[in-house]
């Protein structure tokens, strides 16, 4: 009798284990049936985000370490779950931001980016992987976020934010995070947030510096209150020409996530009238206390002149992208193609090749026979460098049997700075240095790598 009881108990335990395993398997299957991520190419109306009545046991376990914080608690967590956030730009700022918002259990994440993943993004845009190269950034970010927390609703938008679609999109979200990489988009997002009354958590980063402010929040200023005019396009440096250390936007994106979470949970942001600056070199933070919004602001002031979205590329004089602009400063006879230059080399025609990039870029790659004098040194007429240039011109004159205007070709990365340098050198020719014939090599070293020497590195 006791023996039969015992074996029944063993059998029952076995069956219980089987049932548990089946339940687990079913749950996993159900999860994998979550709707596939659909890439949105345009703005469509979203269903309203429903508030959870209570946290599930799984929620409690997942968020337990933050539920323990009196600053968040169950109420704050439930608030997060009913908040939607639009992330404008899935790059160096947007990646860490989206990652922490999803991990913390935000309700809905709109992930907007027009670009595809490139190898040169991976050092800072940490949601994307090597296998995502060439894929839409919005989709790549959404799939990474989904792996982290499948309960967060993710909407990837593969589109360029424009005056036509911005209001419709932004109106559907509770909080907007500006993680963009260019000036026109920053003014567009600002104006759209002011016009639709949404708080704008804005961060930016370049080289070793970062900035963070929450605009249009509880009577605080908007972006235009601080910067009524956009910077002249020629003074704007972006990450593709100025460089950026990946961890710097990482830090700023994390700070941005912190402020979004404080607003979404109901705690409130402390950056509404504060400009936080991060100096990566000194590892220092500094905050500037701002004033309330300006009565004379063009968009959030008392008599606004901007009452609907305008053309921001015209307003800023630049395109809504961080890709380099191509300048056209010279006439056709002042420029040669990289192929023309290749034949000059092949013919061993005597000439001087002047590389006007900064030293840090010359260290990355250069043509072995070039003379390096950075554009800034030419513009400032640094005497040692001008002397060096004159020596090279004299040597060249000897080779060219007294050619009274020996040829100097100027090269840089993409062919913008080299055009500026040609203009400077033409002014110097015949006065500050001997007379020369100066020409720009169109498209620079990147064109050289693309059309003449595929083994030459691109950056």
């Amino acid at each position, binding site marked *: 009798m006791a023996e039969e009881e015992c074996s029944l108990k063993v059998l029952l335990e076995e069956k219980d284990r089987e049932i548990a395993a089946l339940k687990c398997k079913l749950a996993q299957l159900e999860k994998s049936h979550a709707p596939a991520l659909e890439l949105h190419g345009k703005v469509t109306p979203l269903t309203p985000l429903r508030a959870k009545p209570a946290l599930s046991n799984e929620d409690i376990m997942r968020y337990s370490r933050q539920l323990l914080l009196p600053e968040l608690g169950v109420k704050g967590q439930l608030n997060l779950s009913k908040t939607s956030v639009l992330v404008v730009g899935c790059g160096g700022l947007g990646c860490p931001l989206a990652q922490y918002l999803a991990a913390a259990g935000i309700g809905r994440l709109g992930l907007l980016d027009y670009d595809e993943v490139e190898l040169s993004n991976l050092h800072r845009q940490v949601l994307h992987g090597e296998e995502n190269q060439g894929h839409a950034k919005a989709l790549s970010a959404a799939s990474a976020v989904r792996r982290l927390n499948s309960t967060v609703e993710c909407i990837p938008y593969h589109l360029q934010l424009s005056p036509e679609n911005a209001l419709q999109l932004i109106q559907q979200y509770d909080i907007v995070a*500006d993680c963009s990489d260019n000036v026109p988009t920053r003014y567009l997002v600002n104006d759209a947030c002011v016009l639709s009354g949404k708080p704008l958590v804005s961060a930016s980063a370049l080289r070793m510096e970062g900035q963070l402010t929450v605009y249009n929040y509880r009577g605080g200023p908007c972006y235009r209150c601080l910067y009524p005019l956009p910077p002249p396009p020629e003074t704007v440096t972006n990450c593709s020409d100025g460089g950026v250390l990946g961890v710097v936007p990482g830090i700023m994106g994390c700070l941005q996530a912190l402020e979004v979470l404080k607003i979404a949970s109901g705690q409130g942001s402390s950056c509404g009238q504060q400009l936080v600056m991060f100096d990566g070199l000194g590892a220092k933070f500094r905050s500037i206390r701002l004033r309330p919004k300006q009565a004379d602001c063009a968009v959030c002031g008392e008599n606004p002149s901007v009452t609907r979205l305008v053309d921001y590329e015209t307003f800023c004089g630049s395109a809504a992208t961080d890709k380099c602009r191509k300048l056209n400063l010279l006439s056709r006879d002042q420029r040669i193609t990289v192929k023309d230059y290749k034949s000059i080399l092949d013919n061993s025609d005597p000439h001087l090749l002047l590389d006007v990039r900064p030293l840090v870029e010359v260290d990355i790659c250069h043509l072995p026979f070039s003379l390096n004098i950075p554009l800034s040194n030419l513009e400032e007429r640094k005497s040692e460098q001008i002397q060096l240039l004159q020596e090279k011109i004299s040597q060249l004159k000897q080779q060219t049997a007294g050619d009274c205007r020996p040829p100097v070709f100027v090269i840089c990365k993409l062919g913008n700075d080299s055009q500026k340098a040609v203009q400077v050198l033409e002014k110097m020719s015949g006065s500050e240095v001997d007379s020369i014939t100066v020409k720009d090599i169109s498209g620079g070293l990147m064109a050289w790598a693309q059309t003449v020497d595929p083994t030459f590195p691109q950056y």
Partner: protein
Amino acid sequence: MCVLCVVCVLYFAQSADLTGVRGEESVAVPTPISSQDLWTLLLRRHPRLSALQRRVVLAVRQQYVAIGDHLLTLEDGDEVAVVPPLSGG
């Protein structure tokens, strides 16, 4: 009556490129001075800063000041910061 004091000016982002000043610069400034005159004084030292006119935050003792008639009373060692926006991300 007008007194001179020496303030410490910090240039951030693009303003560091335009002025060529990395780190801080000591500048003798009369006090009291209007924020407009303070800005003009910085422009005289670094004419290339004019590219940032109306496109920059000027802060004194880590507080935003609108560039205008607003009168500032400065003391030796006060921090003046020139902060243009960064747009990268």
